[in-house]
């Protein structure tokens, strides 16, 4: 009877990671029994797997599998972190520029003194400079973060490969 002969697991995954995950789960002895789209979200798929119940080294495989799942989620976390610092930086510069523009506008609105108009122009120029430098710095941070997190993602993917290799070895599958 299937209930006693097989183990079952249901996984909800991001669409872009589904194929990779399916391959990795295969290394742990799971075969896909069902795959369907999420009813609400286009980027989510649901997969159901099964594998023989009485497998040797099942506990070791399960511990490795948890590490695999955590590694997968780590890649997602790194991908989300890529634009984070640059966005914070851009936001800071944008607020500063806005402040300069507001101050300049206030000066023009309430006084028509030539000195103040010059000051307001200086503030507008400062705003432009802030936006330019902010864009430049944010872009630089973004590029640096993309490189850092891409390296981390590559490392994590290598980790995933190592885990899959260990799983294959435990299952007695030669390379």
């Amino acid at each position, binding site marked *: 009877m299937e209930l006693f002969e097989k183990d079952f697991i249901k996984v909800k995954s*991001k669409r872009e990671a589904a194929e990779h995950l399916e391959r990795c789960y295969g290394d742990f002895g799971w075969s896909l029994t069902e795959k369907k789209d999420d009813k609400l979200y*286009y980027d989510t798929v649901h997969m159901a797997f099964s594998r023989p119940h009485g497998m040797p080294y099942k506990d070791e495989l399960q511990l490795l599998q948890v590490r695999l799942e955590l590694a*997968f989620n780590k890649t997602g976390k790194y991908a989300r972190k890529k634009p984070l610092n640059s966005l914070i930086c851009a936001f800071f510069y944008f607020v500063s520029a806005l402040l300069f523009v507001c101050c300049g506008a206030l000066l023009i609105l309430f006084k028509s003194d030539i000195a103040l108009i010059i000051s307001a122009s200086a503030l507008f120029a400062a705003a432009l400079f802030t936006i330019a430098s902010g864009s430049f710095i944010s872009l630089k941070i973004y590029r640096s973060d993309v490189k850092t997190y891409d390296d981390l993602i590559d490392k994590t993917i290598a980790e995933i490969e190592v885990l899959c290799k260990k799983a294959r070895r435990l299952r007695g599958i030669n390379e």
Partner: protein
Amino acid sequence: MSNRSRRASRSPDKSVIKIRTEKNGFGKLKVGAIALLVLLQLCFFIYLYLIFAWISGVFMLIAFILSVISCIFLLSSNRSPASKAVWIFIILIFFQVGYFLYFLSSDKYFFRKSRKRYKKIFSYSDERFGAYSVCEPSDCRVKEDIEFLKKSGGFTAFSQTDAKYFSSGGLFFDDVLEKISKAEKFVFIEFFIISEGVLLERFLHILTEKVKSGVDVRIIYDDLGCHGAFPRRVRKRIRNCGIKLMTFNRLIPAVNLMLNIRDHRKLIIIDGKTAYTGGANLADEYTNEARLYGYWKDGGVRVEGPAVDGFTLMFLRQHDYLTRKLSDYEKYFNHFDKKRNASVAVPFSCGLDRDGFIGKELYFNVFSRAQKRLYLMTPYLVPDEALLSMLISKALSGVDVRIILPEIPDKPYVYRITRNNAAKLEESGVKIYLMRDSFVHSKLVLSDYCAIIGSINLDMRSFYQQFESALYTDDKELMAEVEADFERTFEECRPQGDEKNTLVNKAIACVLKIVSPLM
């Protein structure tokens, strides 16, 4: 919003993958609603009391006298010193209602009737429990422990019993199902948590067949442990197929003075020939077929031989308490096959059905008698000062004290205290191991002369509030199996390391430390 436009949106879930879990919103809603109703009722009672006090005019004097009386009662009670200190703190701070809260929480008064009922069941069942021969243990420390268990709780020491250790929930339940499929007379099951899922389906498939063939199947579950995970339709299905299902301490939306008293035991008895106990409950996460907190490390023990009767007695007493009827005890004893094993096996339980705190005292005795090694595996490390000091003292005396804790917690606030206590122990030479990417749920004590496997956590709830079950044994073969599991698990662990000790963390730790004796 139409289904199509919703499909066009991204999922708010940030995880790349998510494994199915048993958590269900309705359960949380139910417990939340009950908690709210209880809180409202409590506030209402306090409000009524304050109005009465205000009208009577002599409120301050009465409150003062009642606070003093409560403190005297409290100081003369057999609570732990730390718990007494916390309660006195509460009575003093909230002196107008503190004593009221204390008496509400005191099992001494509100569990009296239940305790009387238990005593009646105990004396009835004791008369029907036969005499068993036991080999004289060679180690005098085992002899002392046996004596302690006998005198404090009336637990019998058995020999001619085989015990087998299982290092994971998967292995444990595979063996249980195999044995149940061969049951002929009766199957008794008692769990803190029973959850709908693949494992329960496997159980029900076999149990239904067994009931049809005339096997007496009885299940006891704890209502709080099962909230939200064990729906009414499943319970109805179980009852309809002829299984006797009993609930321990039902959750009701009223001020329930015994809400905190839970049945945390894990027991399976098959035909009086085989018994199981351990840390695993009947739910998919315990076999890692569902994921809650990473890899789930659990374990259990199978007993075959005369010691099974000890577990049968435990179950029947709880059964009789719940059904308010006395069972025909003799019918369920002496079905075992004697084994060629001279080791000692003592099935024991602890809880409010007895006067002492047997689990805690036994742990203390075993810790104090360890000479070379003391290995512990526990999800929570919130013992009282005496146990902590004993562990420190043992480590300082050169005993190899090692504790395995989870790296992923299930209850963050308890985990914070656990890690604080672990850090304190580590300073004195206790080796703390955190099992990577895992939640350790096993409750194991391995000393150089004995092992304890069961449901007893190293925390105040297990020692003072809950019903627990365990096996004490000096079986060398079993101890070697447990030791091998410890060695394998050490390899999957990392040392504790330094925690970020920010001001907020320190403040939280201080508050949690104050209330930890009540946890």
